[in-house]
């Protein structure tokens, strides 16, 4: 019976990762940028799961689990930071957060 080649999964994760990067680089709304990071993390998770399937191990799952927790924590803090930014500048456009340069 035909299965799905491992490398397909991995490629998918690579694609998603790249798309996450793209979102980070091209989107201007801070929140969207932040979501792109989540996308990247998901991509990585997919790789972990795939590998642990291939290795028949649970470690990858644990790692993914931890990554999820971290993502949640980061979300909490990150959104708080975004709040303060918005409070101080009344904008979510990432291009306007560049008072410090050179």
């Amino acid at each position: 019976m035909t299965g799905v080649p491992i490398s397909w999964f991995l490629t998918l994760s690579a694609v998603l990762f790249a798309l996450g990067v793209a979102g980070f680089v091209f989107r201007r709304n801070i929140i969207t940028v932040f979501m792109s990071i989540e996308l990247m993390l998901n991509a990585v998770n997919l790789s972990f799961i795939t590998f642990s399937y291939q290795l028949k191990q649970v470690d990858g799952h644990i790692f993914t689990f931890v990554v999820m927790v971290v993502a949640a924590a980061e979300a909490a803090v990150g959104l708080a930071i975004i709040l303060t930014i918005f409070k101080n500048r009344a904008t979510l456009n990432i291009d306007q957060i560049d008072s410090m340069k050179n």
Partner: protein
Amino acid sequence: MPVSLMPNTADILRLLPEIILTVMGTFLMVLDALLQRRNSKAFGNLSLLTLVAALAASVYAYTLAGPAFGGMLVVDGFATFFRVLVIITGILTVLPSYGFLARQNAETSEFHTLLLFSIAGQCLMVAANELIMVFIGLEISSIASYVLAGYLRDDKRANESSLKYFLLGSFATAFFLYGVALIYGSTGTISLTAIRGVLSGPSAPSPVFIGVAAALISVGLGFKVSAAPFQIWAPDVYQGAPSPVAAFLSAGPKAAAFAVFLRIFMTALGPVGGGWEPLVWMSAMASMVIGNFAALLQQNVKRMLAYSSIAHAGYVLVALTARSSIGTAAAMFYLAAYTFMNVGAFAVVSYLSGKGERYQNIEDFAGLGQKQPFTAAMLSIFLLSLIGVPLTGGFFGKFYIFKAALESHLVWLTVLGLLTTAAAAYYYLRLLVMMYMHEPGDAANYAEAPSLSMRFALVLPAIATLFLGIFPTWVLDFAGKSSTLLK
């Protein structure tokens, strides 16, 4: 699949520093909630107490060195060295923070809580012997420091630096994770020692692949140690962050991240060293050049120190490029010296910057040598050490690093490094010139005599800097002994 039963006491004791830090951190938080009228000094004293206790604990933990929690952690000389280092960094951050926080009339309890947590995270990082542990430690330390960077939440620059640090940090972390995933996928394990086993074994994956994974990992770690080409965030974040925090960021996470760097690359990826050496080599060269040259034009002292910290990361990477236990020892020694001189320099900045951190520019240091001779003298020691003048830790560290580099026949890397040192002298000298060769300006005139805690914050690192420069043997031996453990 290794199954360990419930942890025994030894495990707990080896984890003692982290436990103390977290427990006390939580306690501070609760205390803050309970106390009606809060006495801002008390929290500072408490966290100092905690840190000292943690210091003692980590020294004690060293007496029963060994792996803990089924090899998730390993408490060895190396770990202890860095635990002590980050905890000292914490102490040197707390000392100047008294006056600073008072000046900015900011909350103190959470500051110390977060600081303690972040240090706990770094202690975990340096002791971690397994990638999940590394990752968690990294995140604990990072998330705490994201918040710390934006601690003055009504300060636009603080917000901005916090956001930049956070977004780019997470961005880099994602790369790090991807690299870890690839390592895991190719070696089938996440325990560093096990990885080393696989890589040195018969069924080792192609070094090319490890190289790529290493590259991805070095994105994350390079970001944390602010090594080129991932240095770009550092100047903005350091400038925006409150000075004590900037001091902390430039030393604590950096040291911890370097510890991880060393553990992963020397221990886990050691067998395929030839594969990743060019990586570190390029990064080192870029860091030294970018850091030193960009610093030449900075007017803002915090930015200047940021660039200098980039350059110093470059020097440590040179030691890593040597790929020898001597090199590791050199890196460890240099990080120690760097911590003292850099945190010391930042302490002076936070002392001088005044309310709302008005005075951050080089001009503001004018005439400090006449108005505040003591402070100026201390800063001069730090600057001379950063330049690398003999009898200071900075010099001996560089000397030891380049010795290691030359032993590994990295002649031209050494020459380049030393030449950039010479160029670097210029921007440190500008500060000396300002302090001693110009007439006092506002900042120097209005600066009140340093408080007791500030005096400690200056004298301790100064003494340490000179001690490392004149009697390096003791530290060197320890570093040398523990560096061999990485193999």
